[in-house]
Protein backbone atom coordinates (compact mmCIF):
# COMPACT_ATOMS: atom_id res chain seq x y z
CA UNK A 1 0.00 0.00 0.00
CA UNK A 2 2.89 2.27 0.85
CA UNK A 3 4.32 2.96 -2.56
CA UNK A 4 1.08 2.81 -4.45
CA UNK A 5 0.18 6.18 -5.83
CA UNK A 6 -3.08 7.36 -4.31
CA UNK A 7 -5.55 9.19 -6.46
CA UNK A 8 -7.65 11.14 -4.03
CA UNK A 9 -11.05 12.30 -5.21
CA UNK A 10 -12.82 12.55 -1.90
CA UNK A 11 -12.11 16.17 -1.08
CA UNK A 12 -15.59 16.66 0.33
CA UNK A 13 -14.74 14.12 3.03
CA UNK A 14 -11.43 15.73 3.89
CA UNK A 15 -8.55 17.41 2.11
CA UNK A 16 -4.80 17.27 2.11
CA UNK A 17 -3.15 19.81 4.37
CA UNK A 18 -1.62 22.49 2.19
CA UNK A 19 2.19 22.38 2.46
CA UNK A 20 2.23 26.07 3.41
CA UNK A 21 -0.27 25.34 6.16
CA UNK A 22 1.90 22.54 7.47
CA UNK A 23 4.84 24.91 7.36
CA UNK A 24 2.98 27.66 9.20
CA UNK A 25 1.98 25.26 11.96
CA UNK A 26 5.49 24.02 12.71
CA UNK A 27 6.74 26.79 15.05
CA UNK A 28 3.63 26.29 17.16
CA UNK A 29 4.59 22.66 17.60
CA UNK A 30 7.95 23.66 18.97
CA UNK A 31 9.28 26.95 20.25
CA UNK A 32 6.04 28.96 20.11
CA UNK A 33 4.23 26.93 22.72
CA UNK A 34 2.81 29.73 24.88
CA UNK A 35 -0.75 29.84 26.15
CA UNK A 36 -2.52 32.86 24.60
CA UNK A 37 -4.01 33.71 27.99
CA UNK A 38 -0.58 34.16 29.57
CA UNK A 39 0.62 37.74 29.90
CA UNK A 40 4.35 37.14 29.40
CA UNK A 41 6.08 37.19 26.01
CA UNK A 42 5.44 33.55 25.14
CA UNK A 43 1.76 34.07 25.77
CA UNK A 44 1.54 37.35 23.85
CA UNK A 45 3.29 35.75 20.87
CA UNK A 46 0.65 33.01 20.80
CA UNK A 47 -2.15 35.52 21.24
CA UNK A 48 -0.91 37.58 18.31
CA UNK A 49 -0.77 34.48 16.12
CA UNK A 50 -4.37 33.67 17.01
CA UNK A 51 -5.54 37.21 16.27
CA UNK A 52 -3.68 37.23 12.98
CA UNK A 53 -5.41 34.01 11.97
CA UNK A 54 -8.75 35.47 13.00
CA UNK A 55 -8.23 38.35 10.59
CA UNK A 56 -7.47 35.99 7.74
CA UNK A 57 -10.51 33.80 8.34
CA UNK A 58 -12.68 36.90 8.63
CA UNK A 59 -11.32 38.22 5.34
CA UNK A 60 -12.28 35.03 3.51
CA UNK A 61 -15.99 35.62 4.18
CA UNK A 62 -16.17 39.39 4.49
CA UNK A 63 -16.56 39.43 8.27
CA UNK A 64 -14.89 41.51 10.95
CA UNK A 65 -12.27 39.68 13.01
CA UNK A 66 -14.28 40.10 16.22
CA UNK A 67 -17.07 38.19 14.54
CA UNK A 68 -15.03 35.00 14.24
CA UNK A 69 -14.64 32.43 16.97
CA UNK A 70 -12.56 29.32 16.59
CA UNK A 71 -14.11 25.92 17.16
CA UNK A 72 -12.77 22.38 16.91
CA UNK A 73 -14.84 21.35 13.89
CA UNK A 74 -17.69 22.13 11.58
CA UNK A 75 -19.72 19.92 13.87
CA UNK A 76 -19.02 22.12 16.87
CA UNK A 77 -19.85 25.24 14.85
CA UNK A 78 -23.18 23.79 13.80
CA UNK A 79 -23.98 22.59 17.32
CA UNK A 80 -23.16 26.00 18.71
CA UNK A 81 -25.12 27.92 16.09
CA UNK A 82 -28.27 25.91 16.73
CA UNK A 83 -28.05 25.34 20.47
CA UNK A 84 -26.49 28.71 21.21
CA UNK A 85 -29.23 30.62 19.37
CA UNK A 86 -31.99 28.35 20.62
CA UNK A 87 -31.10 28.66 24.30
CA UNK A 88 -30.36 32.37 24.16
CA UNK A 89 -33.57 33.27 22.34
CA UNK A 90 -36.08 30.80 23.73
CA UNK A 91 -37.98 33.60 25.41
CA UNK A 92 -38.77 35.00 21.97
CA UNK A 93 -39.79 31.70 20.43
CA UNK A 94 -39.00 28.04 20.16
CA UNK A 95 -39.36 27.40 16.46
CA UNK A 96 -36.45 26.63 14.14
CA UNK A 97 -36.43 26.00 10.40
CA UNK A 98 -33.83 23.88 8.64
CA UNK A 99 -33.82 21.45 5.72
CA UNK A 100 -34.06 17.72 5.16
CA UNK A 101 -30.64 17.56 3.53
CA UNK A 102 -28.44 19.22 6.14
CA UNK A 103 -25.33 17.53 7.45
CA UNK A 104 -25.93 15.22 10.42
CA UNK A 105 -24.36 17.79 12.74
CA UNK A 106 -27.35 20.03 12.01
CA UNK A 107 -29.99 17.32 11.82
CA UNK A 108 -29.01 15.51 15.00
CA UNK A 109 -28.63 18.78 16.88
CA UNK A 110 -32.08 19.81 15.68
CA UNK A 111 -33.47 16.49 16.87
CA UNK A 112 -31.87 17.00 20.26
CA UNK A 113 -33.41 20.46 20.46
CA UNK A 114 -36.79 18.94 19.68
CA UNK A 115 -36.34 16.76 22.76
CA UNK A 116 -35.63 19.93 24.77
CA UNK A 117 -38.97 21.40 23.76
CA UNK A 118 -38.09 23.25 20.55
CA UNK A 119 -40.06 22.77 17.34
CA UNK A 120 -38.25 22.21 14.07
CA UNK A 121 -39.51 22.41 10.50
CA UNK A 122 -37.45 20.47 7.97
CA UNK A 123 -37.78 22.03 4.53
CA UNK A 124 -38.40 19.91 1.47
CA UNK A 125 -36.09 19.94 -1.52
CA UNK A 126 -36.82 19.35 -5.18
CA UNK A 127 -35.31 16.64 -7.38
CA UNK A 128 -32.14 18.72 -7.76
CA UNK A 129 -31.73 19.15 -4.03
CA UNK A 130 -32.75 22.82 -4.03
CA UNK A 131 -34.90 23.85 -1.09
CA UNK A 132 -38.55 24.63 -1.67
CA UNK A 133 -38.68 28.40 -1.21
CA UNK A 134 -42.46 28.39 -0.92
CA UNK A 135 -42.18 25.86 1.88
CA UNK A 136 -39.81 28.22 3.67
CA UNK A 137 -42.22 31.15 3.30
CA UNK A 138 -45.07 29.10 4.68
CA UNK A 139 -42.98 27.64 7.49
CA UNK A 140 -42.09 30.98 9.04
CA UNK A 141 -44.07 31.67 12.20
CA UNK A 142 -44.13 34.51 14.71
CA UNK A 143 -42.10 32.34 17.08
CA UNK A 144 -39.45 31.36 14.53
CA UNK A 145 -36.05 32.35 15.88
CA UNK A 146 -33.64 30.71 13.46
CA UNK A 147 -33.39 29.54 9.87
CA UNK A 148 -30.45 27.25 9.13
CA UNK A 149 -29.86 26.32 5.50
CA UNK A 150 -26.58 24.90 4.28
CA UNK A 151 -24.71 26.86 1.62
CA UNK A 152 -23.87 23.83 -0.49
CA UNK A 153 -24.63 20.20 0.12
CA UNK A 154 -21.81 17.79 0.89
CA UNK A 155 -23.24 14.84 -0.99
CA UNK A 156 -24.68 16.27 -4.16
CA UNK A 157 -23.01 19.69 -4.25
CA UNK A 158 -26.21 21.64 -4.84
CA UNK A 159 -25.87 25.30 -3.91
CA UNK A 160 -28.87 26.76 -2.11
CA UNK A 161 -30.54 30.06 -3.07
CA UNK A 162 -29.01 32.04 -0.21
CA UNK A 163 -30.02 35.43 -1.66
CA UNK A 164 -33.64 34.39 -1.82
CA UNK A 165 -33.54 33.29 1.79
CA UNK A 166 -31.94 36.59 2.73
CA UNK A 167 -34.73 38.48 0.96
CA UNK A 168 -37.42 36.48 2.70
CA UNK A 169 -35.84 36.99 6.12
CA UNK A 170 -35.17 40.69 5.58
CA UNK A 171 -36.99 42.83 8.18
CA UNK A 172 -37.80 39.74 10.22
CA UNK A 173 -36.11 39.20 13.55
CA UNK A 174 -35.06 35.68 12.65
CA UNK A 175 -31.42 34.67 12.70
CA UNK A 176 -30.02 33.17 9.51
CA UNK A 177 -27.35 30.52 9.87
CA UNK A 178 -25.63 28.72 7.03
CA UNK A 179 -23.37 25.70 7.14
CA UNK A 180 -20.71 26.73 4.64
CA UNK A 181 -18.33 23.88 5.46
CA UNK A 182 -18.35 22.69 1.85
CA UNK A 183 -18.69 26.08 0.19
CA UNK A 184 -16.08 28.15 2.00
CA UNK A 185 -12.92 28.61 0.02
CA UNK A 186 -14.63 27.28 -3.11
CA UNK A 187 -17.32 29.90 -3.63
CA UNK A 188 -16.81 33.62 -3.28
CA UNK A 189 -19.09 34.58 -0.43
CA UNK A 190 -19.63 37.68 1.65
CA UNK A 191 -21.64 37.40 4.83
CA UNK A 192 -22.62 41.06 4.85
CA UNK A 193 -23.93 40.99 1.31
CA UNK A 194 -25.78 37.75 1.89
CA UNK A 195 -27.37 38.85 5.16
CA UNK A 196 -25.92 35.91 7.04
CA UNK A 197 -25.90 36.08 10.85
CA UNK A 198 -23.98 32.88 11.53
CA UNK A 199 -21.78 30.80 9.27
CA UNK A 200 -19.92 27.57 9.97
CA UNK A 201 -16.48 26.71 8.58
CA UNK A 202 -14.32 23.62 8.95
CA UNK A 203 -10.57 23.61 8.47
CA UNK A 204 -10.04 20.14 7.07
CA UNK A 205 -12.38 20.77 4.16
CA UNK A 206 -10.22 23.67 2.99
CA UNK A 207 -6.70 22.29 3.25
CA UNK A 208 -6.18 23.07 6.93
CA UNK A 209 -6.11 20.31 9.54
CA UNK A 210 -8.80 18.18 11.11
CA UNK A 211 -9.75 19.50 14.52
CA UNK A 212 -10.22 23.18 13.76
CA UNK A 213 -13.16 25.21 12.58
CA UNK A 214 -14.64 28.64 12.87
CA UNK A 215 -18.02 30.15 13.49
CA UNK A 216 -18.90 33.59 12.23
CA UNK A 217 -21.31 35.34 14.58
CA UNK A 218 -22.55 38.73 13.40
CA UNK A 219 -22.02 41.52 15.92
CA UNK A 220 -25.00 41.90 18.21
CA UNK A 221 -26.22 38.33 17.82
CA UNK A 222 -27.73 36.93 20.99
CA UNK A 223 -26.05 33.57 21.51
CA UNK A 224 -25.02 31.33 24.39
CA UNK A 225 -21.77 29.40 24.58
CA UNK A 226 -21.90 25.61 24.51
CA UNK A 227 -18.47 25.13 26.09
CA UNK A 228 -18.26 26.88 29.44
CA UNK A 229 -15.04 27.60 31.26
CA UNK A 230 -12.11 29.97 31.35
CA UNK A 231 -13.71 32.58 29.12
CA UNK A 232 -11.56 32.36 26.02
CA UNK A 233 -12.89 33.70 22.69
CA UNK A 234 -14.66 36.59 24.42
CA UNK A 235 -16.34 34.10 26.74
CA UNK A 236 -18.18 32.56 23.81
CA UNK A 237 -16.04 29.45 23.58
CA UNK A 238 -13.89 28.34 26.47
CA UNK A 239 -10.91 26.02 26.33
CA UNK A 240 -7.26 26.71 25.67
CA UNK A 241 -6.96 27.80 22.05
CA UNK A 242 -5.64 25.25 19.55
CA UNK A 243 -2.91 27.67 18.52
CA UNK A 244 -1.15 25.50 15.91
CA UNK A 245 -4.34 24.61 14.09
CA UNK A 246 -5.72 28.12 14.40
CA UNK A 247 -2.59 29.40 12.72
CA UNK A 248 -3.17 26.67 10.13
CA UNK A 249 -6.75 27.61 9.33
CA UNK A 250 -5.65 31.23 9.09
CA UNK A 251 -3.07 30.30 6.51
CA UNK A 252 -5.53 28.08 4.67
CA UNK A 253 -8.08 30.90 4.55
CA UNK A 254 -5.48 33.27 3.17
CA UNK A 255 -4.50 30.79 0.46
CA UNK A 256 -8.13 29.96 -0.33
CA UNK A 257 -8.94 33.63 -0.83
CA UNK A 258 -5.93 34.21 -3.02
CA UNK A 259 -6.47 31.09 -5.14
CA UNK A 260 -10.24 31.13 -5.21
CA UNK A 261 -10.75 32.01 -8.87
CA UNK A 262 -7.82 29.89 -10.04
CA UNK A 263 -9.12 26.87 -8.16
CA UNK A 264 -12.69 27.41 -9.26
CA UNK A 265 -11.59 27.18 -12.88
CA UNK A 266 -9.36 24.18 -12.22
CA UNK A 267 -12.10 22.33 -10.37
CA UNK A 268 -14.76 23.16 -12.93
CA UNK A 269 -12.51 21.97 -15.75
CA UNK A 270 -11.58 18.72 -14.07
CA UNK A 271 -15.19 18.13 -13.12
CA UNK A 272 -16.27 18.67 -16.72
CA UNK A 273 -13.61 16.32 -17.99
CA UNK A 274 -14.54 13.64 -15.48
CA UNK A 275 -18.23 13.98 -16.19
CA UNK A 276 -17.80 13.82 -19.93
CA UNK A 277 -15.46 10.86 -19.70
CA UNK A 278 -17.76 8.89 -17.43
CA UNK A 279 -20.90 9.63 -19.40
CA UNK A 280 -19.12 8.70 -22.61
CA UNK A 281 -17.63 5.46 -21.33
CA UNK A 282 -20.40 4.13 -19.11
CA UNK A 283 -24.10 3.70 -19.98
CA UNK A 284 -27.10 3.99 -17.66
CA UNK A 285 -26.10 6.75 -15.29
CA UNK A 286 -27.94 9.43 -13.38
CA UNK A 287 -26.36 12.72 -12.40
CA UNK A 288 -27.51 13.64 -8.90
CA UNK A 289 -27.78 17.23 -7.76
CA UNK A 290 -28.35 20.46 -9.59
CA UNK A 291 -27.03 20.43 -13.16
CA UNK A 292 -25.53 23.93 -12.87
CA UNK A 293 -25.84 25.35 -9.37
CA UNK A 294 -23.34 23.00 -7.86
CA UNK A 295 -20.10 23.10 -5.96
CA UNK A 296 -17.14 23.20 -8.33
CA UNK A 297 -15.46 19.81 -8.27
CA UNK A 298 -18.42 17.83 -6.97
CA UNK A 299 -19.87 15.09 -9.12
CA UNK A 300 -22.44 12.68 -7.73
CA UNK A 301 -23.45 9.93 -10.09
CA UNK A 302 -25.73 6.92 -9.67
CA UNK A 303 -24.52 3.83 -11.49
CA UNK A 304 -27.69 1.89 -12.11
CA UNK A 305 -28.08 -1.73 -10.94
CA UNK A 306 -25.08 -1.79 -8.64
CA UNK A 307 -24.29 -0.77 -5.12
CA UNK A 308 -21.94 2.06 -4.20
CA UNK A 309 -19.75 0.45 -1.55
CA UNK A 310 -18.61 -2.20 -4.00
CA UNK A 311 -17.52 0.50 -6.41
CA UNK A 312 -15.65 2.35 -3.69
CA UNK A 313 -13.78 -0.77 -2.62
CA UNK A 314 -12.98 -1.83 -6.18
CA UNK A 315 -11.59 1.64 -6.91
CA UNK A 316 -9.66 1.48 -3.65
CA UNK A 317 -7.92 -1.62 -4.95
CA UNK A 318 -6.56 0.61 -7.70
CA UNK A 319 -5.54 3.32 -5.24
CA UNK A 320 -8.47 5.57 -6.05
CA UNK A 321 -10.38 7.18 -3.18
CA UNK A 322 -13.99 8.20 -3.71
CA UNK A 323 -17.04 7.74 -1.54
CA UNK A 324 -20.71 6.96 -1.44
CA UNK A 325 -22.34 10.10 -0.13
CA UNK A 326 -20.84 11.51 3.03
CA UNK A 327 -18.03 9.85 4.93
CA UNK A 328 -20.04 9.86 8.11
CA UNK A 329 -22.75 7.66 6.71
CA UNK A 330 -20.45 5.22 5.01
CA UNK A 331 -21.00 2.80 7.88
CA UNK A 332 -24.74 3.06 7.65
CA UNK A 333 -26.91 0.68 5.71
CA UNK A 334 -29.68 3.08 4.93
CA UNK A 335 -29.75 4.78 1.58
CA UNK A 336 -28.66 8.39 1.62
CA UNK A 337 -31.23 10.61 3.33
CA UNK A 338 -30.23 13.36 0.94
CA UNK A 339 -31.13 11.34 -2.15
CA UNK A 340 -34.22 10.09 -0.34
CA UNK A 341 -35.35 13.68 0.24
CA UNK A 342 -34.82 14.28 -3.48
CA UNK A 343 -37.23 11.39 -4.14
CA UNK A 344 -34.77 9.42 -6.21
CA UNK A 345 -35.61 5.86 -7.23
CA UNK A 346 -34.43 3.69 -4.32
CA UNK A 347 -32.85 1.15 -6.66
CA UNK A 348 -30.56 3.80 -8.00
CA UNK A 349 -29.86 5.55 -4.72
CA UNK A 350 -27.70 2.66 -3.58
CA UNK A 351 -25.45 3.04 -6.57
CA UNK A 352 -24.44 6.64 -6.05
CA UNK A 353 -20.82 7.64 -5.98
CA UNK A 354 -19.45 11.03 -5.05
CA UNK A 355 -16.35 12.23 -6.80
CA UNK A 356 -15.04 15.40 -5.16
CA UNK A 357 -12.15 17.10 -6.83
CA UNK A 358 -9.70 19.28 -4.93
CA UNK A 359 -7.03 21.83 -5.68
CA UNK A 360 -4.35 19.15 -5.73
CA UNK A 361 -5.99 17.01 -8.41
CA UNK A 362 -4.70 16.84 -11.97
CA UNK A 363 -5.92 15.70 -15.36
CA UNK A 364 -3.94 12.50 -14.85
CA UNK A 365 -6.08 11.73 -11.82
CA UNK A 366 -9.21 12.08 -13.92
CA UNK A 367 -7.73 9.93 -16.66
CA UNK A 368 -6.87 7.22 -14.15
CA UNK A 369 -10.52 7.04 -13.19
CA UNK A 370 -11.69 7.01 -16.77
CA UNK A 371 -9.35 4.10 -17.37
CA UNK A 372 -10.40 2.12 -14.31
CA UNK A 373 -14.04 2.76 -13.69
CA UNK A 374 -15.81 1.30 -16.77
CA UNK A 375 -14.34 -2.15 -16.15
CA UNK A 376 -15.39 -2.09 -12.53
CA UNK A 377 -18.94 -1.02 -13.31
CA UNK A 378 -19.14 -3.70 -15.97
CA UNK A 379 -17.96 -6.48 -13.68
CA UNK A 380 -20.35 -5.48 -10.91
CA UNK A 381 -23.25 -5.20 -13.29
CA UNK A 382 -22.36 -8.61 -14.66
CA UNK A 383 -23.13 -10.18 -11.29
CA UNK A 384 -26.14 -7.95 -10.54
CA UNK A 385 -29.55 -9.67 -10.64
CA UNK A 386 -31.11 -6.30 -11.43
CA UNK A 387 -29.08 -5.69 -14.54
CA UNK A 388 -30.20 -8.92 -16.19
CA UNK A 389 -33.81 -8.02 -15.77
CA UNK A 390 -33.50 -5.16 -18.25
Amino acid at each position, binding site marked *: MADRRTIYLDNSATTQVHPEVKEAIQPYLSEKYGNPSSIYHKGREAKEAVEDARKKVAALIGADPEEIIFTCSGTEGNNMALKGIAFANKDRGKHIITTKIEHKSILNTAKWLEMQGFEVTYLNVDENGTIDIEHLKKAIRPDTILVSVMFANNEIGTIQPIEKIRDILKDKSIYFHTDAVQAAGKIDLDVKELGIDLLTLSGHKMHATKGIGALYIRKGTKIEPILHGGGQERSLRSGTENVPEIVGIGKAAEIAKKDLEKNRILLKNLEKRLKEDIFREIPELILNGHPEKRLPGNLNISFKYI*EGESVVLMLDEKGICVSTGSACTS*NSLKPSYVLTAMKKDP*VFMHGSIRFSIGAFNTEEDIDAITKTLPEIIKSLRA*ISPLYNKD
Partner: protein
Amino acid sequence: MYSKKVMDHFKNPRNTGEIEDADGIGEVGNPICGDIMKITIKVKDDRIEDIKFKTFGCAAAIATSSMITEIAKGKTLEEAKEISKKDVSCALDGLPPIKEHCSNLASEGLRKAIDDYMMKKKD
Protein backbone atom coordinates in the same frame (compact mmCIF):
# COMPACT_ATOMS: atom_id res chain seq x y z
CA MET B 1 -12.75 -3.29 8.16
CA TYR B 2 -13.27 -6.44 6.08
CA SER B 3 -11.20 -9.59 6.56
CA LYS B 4 -8.85 -10.75 3.84
CA LYS B 5 -11.21 -13.61 3.02
CA VAL B 6 -14.11 -11.24 2.53
CA MET B 7 -12.02 -9.06 0.27
CA ASP B 8 -10.86 -12.09 -1.70
CA HIS B 9 -14.41 -13.33 -2.29
CA PHE B 10 -15.54 -9.80 -3.06
CA LYS B 11 -12.79 -9.20 -5.60
CA ASN B 12 -12.92 -12.68 -7.11
CA PRO B 13 -16.41 -13.94 -6.53
CA ARG B 14 -16.83 -17.66 -7.21
CA ASN B 15 -19.75 -19.19 -9.10
CA THR B 16 -21.23 -16.00 -10.44
CA GLY B 17 -23.95 -15.95 -13.02
CA GLU B 18 -27.18 -17.80 -13.60
CA ILE B 19 -27.78 -21.44 -14.50
CA GLU B 20 -29.94 -21.37 -17.62
CA ASP B 21 -32.00 -24.49 -16.95
CA ALA B 22 -31.86 -24.26 -13.19
CA ASP B 23 -33.67 -26.84 -11.04
CA GLY B 24 -34.22 -24.34 -8.26
CA ILE B 25 -34.22 -20.54 -8.04
CA GLY B 26 -34.01 -18.46 -4.89
CA GLU B 27 -34.49 -14.71 -4.86
CA VAL B 28 -34.24 -12.66 -1.68
CA GLY B 29 -33.85 -9.08 -0.58
CA ASN B 30 -35.31 -5.93 -1.98
CA PRO B 31 -33.88 -2.88 -3.66
CA ILE B 32 -34.87 -0.48 -0.89
CA CYS B 33 -32.66 -2.29 1.60
CA GLY B 34 -29.95 -2.33 -1.01
CA ASP B 35 -29.34 -6.06 -1.09
CA ILE B 36 -30.77 -8.44 -3.65
CA MET B 37 -29.55 -11.95 -4.30
CA LYS B 38 -30.51 -14.60 -6.81
CA ILE B 39 -29.26 -18.18 -6.45
CA THR B 40 -29.78 -20.83 -9.07
CA ILE B 41 -29.02 -24.50 -8.45
CA LYS B 42 -28.69 -27.67 -10.46
CA VAL B 43 -29.52 -30.79 -8.47
CA LYS B 44 -28.49 -34.36 -9.15
CA ASP B 45 -29.10 -37.32 -6.81
CA ASP B 46 -30.23 -34.93 -4.08
CA ARG B 47 -26.94 -33.16 -4.28
CA ILE B 48 -26.17 -29.61 -5.41
CA GLU B 49 -24.27 -30.32 -8.55
CA ASP B 50 -23.97 -26.73 -9.65
CA ILE B 51 -24.77 -23.39 -8.06
CA LYS B 52 -24.52 -19.82 -9.27
CA PHE B 53 -25.38 -16.44 -7.81
CA LYS B 54 -26.01 -12.88 -8.76
CA THR B 55 -25.93 -10.19 -6.09
CA PHE B 56 -26.71 -6.53 -5.95
CA GLY B 57 -25.19 -5.24 -2.74
CA CYS B 58 -22.19 -4.23 -0.76
CA ALA B 59 -18.88 -6.09 -0.57
CA ALA B 60 -20.16 -8.20 2.32
CA ALA B 61 -23.25 -9.22 0.38
CA ILE B 62 -21.18 -10.27 -2.60
CA ALA B 63 -18.62 -12.13 -0.49
CA THR B 64 -21.22 -14.03 1.53
CA SER B 65 -23.01 -14.98 -1.68
CA SER B 66 -19.78 -16.24 -3.16
CA MET B 67 -18.84 -18.12 0.00
CA ILE B 68 -22.15 -19.89 0.37
CA THR B 69 -21.98 -21.19 -3.18
CA GLU B 70 -18.56 -22.64 -2.39
CA ILE B 71 -19.79 -24.27 0.78
CA ALA B 72 -22.95 -25.61 -0.77
CA LYS B 73 -21.52 -27.06 -3.94
CA GLY B 74 -21.47 -30.85 -3.79
CA LYS B 75 -23.46 -30.99 -0.54
CA THR B 76 -26.72 -32.93 -0.23
CA LEU B 77 -29.83 -30.78 -0.11
CA GLU B 78 -30.28 -31.73 3.55
CA GLU B 79 -26.76 -30.61 4.38
CA ALA B 80 -27.06 -27.44 2.31
CA LYS B 81 -30.27 -26.43 4.05
CA GLU B 82 -28.40 -26.54 7.36
CA ILE B 83 -25.80 -23.99 6.33
CA SER B 84 -26.32 -21.16 8.80
CA LYS B 85 -25.41 -17.51 8.56
CA LYS B 86 -22.88 -18.27 11.27
CA ASP B 87 -21.21 -20.86 9.03
CA VAL B 88 -20.91 -18.34 6.24
CA SER B 89 -19.52 -15.51 8.32
CA CYS B 90 -17.09 -17.87 10.09
CA ALA B 91 -15.85 -19.17 6.78
CA LEU B 92 -15.13 -15.55 5.87
CA ASP B 93 -13.25 -14.95 9.13
CA GLY B 94 -16.09 -12.79 10.39
CA LEU B 95 -17.97 -9.74 9.23
CA PRO B 96 -18.15 -6.25 10.70
CA PRO B 97 -21.11 -6.14 13.13
CA ILE B 98 -23.02 -3.72 10.93
CA LYS B 99 -22.75 -6.16 8.02
CA GLU B 100 -23.77 -9.34 9.88
CA HIS B 101 -27.23 -9.22 8.32
CA CYS B 102 -25.68 -9.87 4.91
CA SER B 103 -24.86 -13.46 5.80
CA ASN B 104 -28.53 -13.86 6.58
CA LEU B 105 -29.37 -13.04 3.02
CA ALA B 106 -27.08 -15.69 1.60
CA SER B 107 -28.36 -18.61 3.68
CA GLU B 108 -31.93 -17.49 3.08
CA GLY B 109 -31.34 -17.36 -0.65
CA LEU B 110 -29.94 -20.84 -0.74
CA ARG B 111 -32.79 -22.22 1.31
CA LYS B 112 -35.29 -20.59 -1.04
CA ALA B 113 -33.61 -22.14 -4.04
CA ILE B 114 -33.78 -25.58 -2.42
CA ASP B 115 -37.43 -25.07 -1.46
CA ASP B 116 -38.16 -24.03 -5.01
CA TYR B 117 -36.56 -27.25 -6.29
CA MET B 118 -38.61 -29.33 -3.83
CA MET B 119 -41.82 -27.60 -4.86
CA LYS B 120 -41.13 -28.14 -8.54
CA LYS B 121 -40.25 -31.82 -7.94
CA LYS B 122 -43.60 -32.35 -6.22
CA ASP B 123 -45.54 -30.96 -9.15
